[in-house]
């Protein structure tokens, strides 16, 4: 235990202010050999250890990058390390053993990042903010790209789900975050996407690549159809109409037995193929979803920075002013709905392809609320914020499995606290302006 600790302290650049001794004593590197034994009674340990790991590393960063960066890092690390602990316990229980070395892998990546921060001469030439984001992006890319190599299936599975929710939440972010139209029935588009692929695949035998454009067209069209009555309304009334739309779609799927098999759902949906290769392993699917998520983020970023995105933001800020400066508000609200629905549809198709099974249960009102929470948690109109929000809200419930019954309570109270202390969301502070 101690040797590992010393190794890390020696290789990291010495911080200008010596760390308080107490911190070093309580710091504890988790080791795989101990990880599995704790499962049953160690739920306190499960939170304390990641807490100290995150605190310690954040303190290391403090002298280099200031308090804000350290706090953000602390939150990310705490979330990530606790997750690793949690899944390890969980996976340990299921498989009755562990074969990974993931804690060490993770700590190593972080150690390398600290090194880069402290030493790299290239970074010193860059302005501070740029250096910070370069290192952050590099670090994140390594963690994200190599995940299937060090993660367990359970972790990868959650990551795939996060990826799908990132696409879904970015879609909603267009409607709620950029254009300021509250949509409480967003899961409807998610459902339409998923069922389109499910039905095209099982009934007509179309493959993933043939179904994808058809499904997306259908979803976009349904976005337009909802937009036409909805755009006459504002605020609360619009929210009610979208809520109704969401319920209608779910009820149709639930009751149209002959077509959708009702509550039993549709099974046996085929997985996607690329160049004749079947994407069925969870690791393969991870990269598959990752590509789509990156595509979504890239396209949405570009569109948000274009004249269309600016019109959306202007409409959110003041609709009358927008039309008085020459923005066709009706058209842009319509685009917003349809474009948002498009990404929800993509998320739905991927969801169906991953699960190979869809049922109306996955598209309830709670699903719409969850996605809305991701957008609000991350920060309305902030693309990186919404990514973070999606990941947190997918991972947090899994992390909190340890505390069982109190899981939803903890999640709920966490959200309440966040809204009290940071109503603009985690990263929504500057995101409202064009240049964020």
């Amino acid at each position, binding site marked *: 235990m101690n040797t590992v600790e010393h190794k890390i302290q020696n290789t990291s650049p010495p911080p200008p202010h010596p760390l308080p001794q107490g911190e070093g004593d309580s710091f504890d590197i988790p080791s795989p050999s101990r990880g599995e034994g704790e499962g049953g009674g160690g739920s306190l340990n499960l939170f304390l250890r990641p807490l100290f790991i995150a605190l310690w590393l954040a303190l290391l960063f403090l002298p280099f990058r200031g308090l804000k960066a350290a706090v953000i890092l602390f939150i990310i690390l705490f979330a990530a390390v606790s997750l690793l602990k949690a899944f390890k316990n969980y996976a340990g229980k299921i498989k009755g053993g562990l074969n990974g070395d993931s804690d060490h892998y993770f700590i190593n990546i972080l150690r390398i990042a600290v090194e880069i921060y402290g030493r790299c001469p290239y970074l010193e030439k860059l302005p501070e903010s740029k250096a910070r984001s370069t290192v952050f992006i590099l670090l994140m890319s390594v963690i994200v790209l190599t995940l299937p190599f060090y993660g367990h299936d359970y972790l990868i599975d959650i990551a795939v789900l996060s990826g799908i929710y990132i696409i879904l939440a970015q879609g909603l972010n267009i409607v709620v975050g950029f254009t300021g139209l509250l949509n409480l029935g967003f899961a409807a588009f998610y459902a339409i996407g998923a069922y389109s692929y499910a039905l095209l695949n099982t009934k007509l035998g179309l493959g993933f690549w043939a179904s994808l454009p058809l499904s997306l067209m259908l979803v976009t069209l349904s976005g337009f159809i909802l937009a036409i009555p909805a755009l006459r309304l504002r605020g609360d009334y619009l929210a009610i109409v979208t809520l109704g739309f969401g319920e209608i779609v779910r009820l149709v799927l639930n009751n149209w037995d002959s077509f959708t098999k009702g509550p039993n759902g549709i099974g046996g949906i085929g997985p996607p193929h690329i160049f004749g290769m079947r994407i069925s392993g969870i690791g393969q699917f991870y990269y598959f979803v990752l590509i789509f998520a990156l595509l979504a983020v890239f396209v949405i970023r570009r569109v948000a920075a*274009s004249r269309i995105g600016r*019109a959306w933001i*202007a409409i959110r800020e003041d609709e009358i002013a927008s039309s*008085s400066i*020459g*923005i066709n508000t009706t058209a842009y609200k319509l685009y917003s709905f349809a474009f948002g629905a498009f990404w929800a549809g993509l998320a739905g198709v991927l969801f169906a392809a991953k699960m190979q099974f869809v049922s109306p249960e996955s598209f309830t009102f709670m699903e719409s609320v969850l996605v809305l929470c991701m957008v609000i948690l991350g920060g309305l109109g902030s693309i990186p914020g919404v990514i973070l929000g999606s990941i947190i809200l997918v991972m947090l419930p899994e992390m909190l499995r340890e505390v069982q019954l109190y899981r939803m309570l903890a999640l709920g109270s966490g959200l309440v606290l966040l809204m009290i202390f940071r109503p603009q969301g985690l990263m929504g502070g500057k995101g409202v302006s064009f240049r964020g």
Partner: protein
Amino acid sequence: MLELNDIHTFYGPIEALKGITLKVNQGEIVCLIGNNGAGKSTTLMTISGILKPKAGTISFIGSDISDMPPHSIVEMGISHVPEGRRIFPRLTVKENLEMGAYSVSRRLKTTPPIPPLARGGVGGVKSQFDKVYEMFPVLKEREKQMGGTLSGGEQQMLAISRALMSEPKLLLLDEPSLGLAPIIVSRIFKAIREINKEGVTILLVEQNAHAALNLSGRGYVLENGRIKMHGQGKDLLNSEEVKKAYLGE
């Protein structure tokens, strides 16, 4: 230049304009005065297309604009500074101005639209920025500040400047003096005169009848959705009826 012919506008079942006929000639400053609820703002909103008239026609430089959507009317060359300023509070001053040039970038079909224009790359927007900053140097100083953090007077300047970014032929101003200190009001009115000198026709709605009539060539007095009287600004100022009702003398 602008002609309203027997315009009727409704809010639901309530008839707010009961047959407005008025005319604005090229190069003029025309003001509309009247009590609260007389229909002054409604008239401007009907001209700019935010409200649709139930009956009557509006023609602008020879074409009928009464059925056009607001964004097309802006492209025709009518710019509206709405009541209560309505700047974008969470966009910076510069971004507010860029948004004002939205219809210009649309006309020039430039993509991506505003950033290169703002940098002075294409078209006339750069010079429009210079003009606006020359008229209100304080906006240049506050370029990177959020619109919502400006004072009331600065917000009004921003709102007028934003409307000027589309290089309008006719500027509709709705209560530019609302809630401002007298010294700021005279600053704004001076700017309105400057804008007019540069060739922009102005239709002004004001509660501050004295200042407005002093500034304007002609004026219309509205009451209960109808035009009660109209004439030269100076004549209206001296009219007993206007004095009693609107000037508090």
